[in-house]
């Protein structure tokens, strides 16, 4: 399942570095561990999308998280996003500038295509 996902993301121009692959940065590592410890996900992927933006190479500013957790059961989307935002509050206050979130329950994940669209193209607003 995640193979499909990664293949999709790694194809063409969408080269993504997943936290479960080598070469991820320290911030990404911390974020991964915090989410893992707090939400006990059955599926967790973190993508550093900073390269898509006008920031220095190797930056850790723009991320996408795909997280599937039984703890999301019965919670509306906004509460799931708030939970993720709160767990990563320190990172969001410091260097992390954008966080795109896909938060699903295991059932929703099983029923979905398990493919996640890459984030939209940057339009130059960062750092103004």
């Amino acid at each position, binding site marked *: 399942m995640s193979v499909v996902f990664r293949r999709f993301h790694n194809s063409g121009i969408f080269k993504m570095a997943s936290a479960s692959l080598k070469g991820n940065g320290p911030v990404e590592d911390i974020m991964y561990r915090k989410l893992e410890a707090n939400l006990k996900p059955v599926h967790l992927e973190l993508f550093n999308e900073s390269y898509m933006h006008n920031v220095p190479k190797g930056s850790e500013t723009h991320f996408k998280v795909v997280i599937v957790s039984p703890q999301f059961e019965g919670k509306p*989307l*906004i509460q799931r*996003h*708030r939970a993720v*935002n709160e767990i990563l*509050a320190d990172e*969001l*206050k410091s260097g992390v500038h*954008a*966080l*795109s*979130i*896909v938060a699903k329950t295991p059932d929703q994940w099983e029923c979905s295509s398990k493919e996640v669209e890459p*984030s*939209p*193209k*940057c*339009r*130059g*607003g*960062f750092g*103004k």
Partner: protein
Amino acid sequence: MSVTVLSQMLRQAGRFNKSLPSLAQLRFYGTEDNRITKMVQNNKVVVFMKGVPAEPRCGFSNAVVQIMRMHGVEYDAHDVLSDEQLRQGIKDFSNWPTIPQVFINGEFVGGCDILLQMHQSGDLIEELKKAGITSALLDSAQQKDDAGKSDSK
């Protein structure tokens, strides 16, 4: 408790040296909150974004603009890049760390990801309906439906 006392207490606590707001800042947060409350209540749909609808300066903001366009929604848009106070103020107001932010009927609905999912699930049409707005997507679907009915007669 007065703002002055609160500010002094925080300062004495000394734990948040760097992030400690000054008295002026505390006063400012108050007025900024009031200003934003007025903004979000000024129209049924209000969007805080980077850039303006005709020229969004962030992909996430652009996605929200496109969704609103598809639904034919008229809304107030506020560019946080041209207003530094608003840029931080809106994050504090909603307790939400990122831009864009969408309000319907004065209530915070979510950012780009949530709007996109609401659009895909059909929840956005429902949410707009609650605010008394008929989505353009619903209109065109009904027209098709009506056309279908007259064809079958």
